[in-house]
């Protein structure tokens, strides 16, 4: 007990684990996350669309990379977060983990959709077809199904949000194992059925001028995810704890602020 009190990490864990303090602490970050992501988004898109040189093979169409790749990265990153929170939610029954997990699902699904559609928009000029069943696109599509499954499970049990979240958590955890297996099996499959793997990036050499905007965009999407997830998790906590004292105090406070 005494040891716990001295350990800063454990204290932080317990603080973040309690809905009211999570709500309070996350409130400080929201504005900054949003501003940072908008700023980086503008900067990254400006560099990517205006400053970066055109690819010598793909021309200007390669600029789709600046939204496609960050979105694809995020779709997997967010799923990883969901799996992690799912494990915490199932084992330690931490409500905040449930909130973070369910708050990640919509934005993660959005990123997956963006990755899929922009991939298709990139594929048309490059491959001459809107859709190619290559390993990456196929796994991404199945990832979308997993996102949909998690959200569908949650809404199917909507009369008991606690149970719904834990059910969805289980799907997320099972899905984590499966994403890996699915990815490798699809890779194996496309290697025997297509002979050569088609790659969007091809052999082109990525210069620093081309890479920098990509990294900026990667950070921009990460910050936007942070904003969207925290905001949604806060709403989730307000909604599910609505009969508790701290929620009523919070709502009253914001009420006084809004009434101008």
């Amino acid at each position, binding site marked *: 007990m005494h040891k716990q009190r001295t350990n800063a990490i454990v204290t932080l864990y317990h603080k973040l684990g309690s809905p009211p303090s999570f709500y309070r602490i996350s409130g400080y970050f929201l504005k900054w996350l949003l501003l940072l992501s908008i700023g980086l*988004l503008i900067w990254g*898109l400006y560099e990517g*669309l*205006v400053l970066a040189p*055109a690819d010598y093979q793909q*021309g*200007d*169409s390669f*600029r*789709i990379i600046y*939204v*496609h790749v960050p*979105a694809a990265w995020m779709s997997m990153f967010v799923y990883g977060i969901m799996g992690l929170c799912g494990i915490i939610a199932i084992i330690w029954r931490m409500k905040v983990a449930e909130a973070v997990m369910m708050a990640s699902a*919509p*934005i993660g699904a*959005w990123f997956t*959709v*963006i990755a899929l*559609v*922009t991939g298709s*928009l*990139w594929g*048309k*000029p490059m491959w001459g077809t809107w859709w190619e069943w290559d390993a990456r696109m196929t796994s991404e599509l199945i990832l979308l199904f997993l996102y949909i499954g998690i959200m569908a499970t949650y809404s199917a049990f909507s009369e008991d949000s606690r149970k719904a979240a834990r059910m969805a958590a289980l799907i997320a955890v099972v899905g984590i194992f499966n994403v890996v297996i699915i990815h490798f099996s699809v890779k194996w499959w496309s290697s025997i059925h297509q002979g050569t793997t088609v790659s969007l990036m091809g052999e082109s050499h990525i210069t620093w001028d081309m890479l920098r905007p990509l990294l900026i965009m990667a950070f921009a999407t990460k910050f*936007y995810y942070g904003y*969207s997830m925290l*905001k*949604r998790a*806060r*709403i989730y906590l*307000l*909604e599910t704890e*609505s*009969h508790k004292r701290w*929620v*009523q105090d919070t*709502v009253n406070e*914001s*009420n006084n602020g809004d009434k101008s």
Partner: protein
Amino acid sequence: MNEFFNMGGYAFYVWSSIGLFLGAMVIDFIGLSMKEKTVKRNIKSWMRRKLNK
């Protein structure tokens, strides 16, 4: 400037990609604000119901 919007002939593909990306963010953002308003309104209404009891 025209050249910039033309994107070397790939205007449709590039701009719809960017548009979708930004559109999704904006939809997500607006959806969040609306959800927050509804939830807070519902909680306030519930508190009034409790007060009147």
